[in-house]
């Protein structure tokens, strides 16, 4: 099956209409001629199961305008994940990658079944070049993480990240089963299992969506009680046509919430890692970011949907239907082909992907324009300031002031 057929043409036309930048205005050939080269794929996210046993009210897969999940197989067929493993192995060999990461995702990946997951991981590790280390992770809602499941995942060396939204009441307000029951009790049991010393090596961390109508310190303490190695606070996916749920003109509710957590966290001895704060601190000190929310680092990940479609990250589905699509298929196209997609290129360009407003802002080396999906405006596309611009500015200014004060103290000459 050719990957550049009529449907691909229609897809590209739709993307050009919905997002002139990058799809109509970015010129990959010109970039290459100027010496730019893409960053190879390091993370491959496999959507091994399209359905979920929860019905979270903010889910950007099921609740966004992009409903492409309905047309894909519920379970990723064996020949698709086999092709994905082989494709990634070829990519690793071509680019001499020292390591790759495969993240099992969904829907809920544990609905896929552990036997299938074991075969998938076995294939991955068997096909990868000897010089390439294969790290495997899973992002789960935690409901199906029973003791036998955790033990099996540990035996397979699959790191487990769990989505939790803070206190039981806050979590159960959003993260419910299809029957409307809260899921916190099951998730708490799962996290207690992951915290056990025997399982700690595969406890990756907690992922939490920021909600300014919750108590920030209470949320942080509730999450900390699970002793996660890392907490990943995510801003809800939004853009100018679908603004953040708590955004009001002249206010910065997301920054206010995050600042309250930061002030509670910063200065502690051996504080739990908070990816967003750790990234901002590293960026303020001249380092690089590692997540999509801040910094100018190139995005090195691709998604394989359950039907084999090679896509950009799910977050883009919050922008418009088809925003994540590349028109490529992991069974027929090399991963390198995706690196020529204007949408993929745009997320690897750093400063060159940003608006004039962003480029004139002194905070831009730290915020990096914010999450790519949050820069979207219908029609013109992704070359705009983030819908969280003022929140990011306030948060970064606050962190910067704290760090600067500490550095001044550290640099002060000792008194005799």
């Amino acid at each position: 099956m050719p990957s550049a057929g009529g449907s691909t043409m229609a897809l590209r036309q739709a993307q050009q209409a919905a997002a002139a930048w990058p799809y109509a205005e970015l010129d990959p050939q010109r970039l290459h001629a100027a010496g730019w080269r893409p960053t190879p794929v390091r993370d491959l996210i496999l959507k091994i199961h399209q359905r979920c046993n929860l019905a979270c009210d903010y889910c950007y897969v099921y609740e966004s305008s992009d409903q492409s999940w309905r047309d894909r197989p519920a379970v990723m067929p064996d020949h698709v994940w086999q092709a994905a493993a082989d494709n990634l192995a070829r990519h690793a060999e071509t680019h001499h990658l020292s390591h790759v990461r495969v993240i099992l995702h969904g829907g809920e990946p544990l609905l896929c079944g552990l036997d299938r997951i074991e075969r998938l991981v076995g294939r991955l590790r068997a096909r990868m070049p000897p010089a390439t280390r294969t790290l495997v992770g899973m992002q789960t809602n935690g409901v199906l993480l029973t003791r036998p499941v955790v033990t099996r995942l540990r035996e397979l060396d699959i790191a487990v990240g769990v989505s939790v939204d803070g206190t039981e009441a806050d979590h159960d307000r959003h993260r419910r089963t299809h029957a409307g029951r809260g899921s916190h009790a099951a998730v708490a049991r799962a996290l207690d299992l992951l915290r056990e010393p025997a399982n700690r090596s595969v406890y990756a961390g907690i992922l939490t969506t920021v909600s300014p109508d919750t108590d920030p310190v209470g949320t942080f303490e509730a999450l900390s009680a699970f002793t996660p190695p890392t907490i990943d606070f995510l801003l809800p996916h939004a853009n100018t046509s679908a603004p953040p749920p708590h955004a009001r003109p002249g206010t910065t509710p997301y920054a206010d919430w995050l600042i309250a957590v930061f002030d509670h966290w910063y200065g502690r001895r051996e504080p739990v890692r908070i990816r967003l704060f750790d990234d901002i601190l590293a960026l303020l000190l001249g380092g690089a970011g590692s997540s999509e929310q801040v910094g100018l680092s190139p995005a090195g990940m691709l998604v394989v949907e359950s039907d084999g479609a090679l896509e950009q990250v799910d977050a883009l589905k919050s922008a418009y239907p088809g925003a994540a699509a590349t028109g490529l298929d992991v069974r027929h196209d090399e991963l390198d082909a995706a690196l020529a997609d204007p949408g993929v290129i745009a997320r690897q360009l750093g400063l060159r992907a940003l608006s004039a407003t962003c480029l004139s802002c002194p905070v831009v080396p730290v915020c990096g324009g914010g999450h790519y999906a949050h820069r979207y405006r219908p029609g013109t596309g992704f070359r705009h300031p983030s819908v969280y611009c003022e929140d990011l500015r306030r948060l970064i200014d606050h962190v910067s002031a704290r760090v600067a004060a500490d550095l001044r103290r550290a640099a002060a000459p000792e008194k005799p």
Partner: protein
Amino acid sequence: MDAANTSGAAVTWAPLVDLADRPVLEVIQGGDDALARAARRVIGALDDPDGIISAFQSFTS
């Protein structure tokens, strides 16, 4: 394009302290707080100054 009115752009952003000639490295490297950890991370990544964005938190620190 780029018609956003971001009032933040007009505000002066205070640069961090110039520590070029100050013996601060030992202080922040030896600590056990978040700032010291960030400093170690930056120094440890000098061979990969651009970093690569990852989708999964456990592999990035």
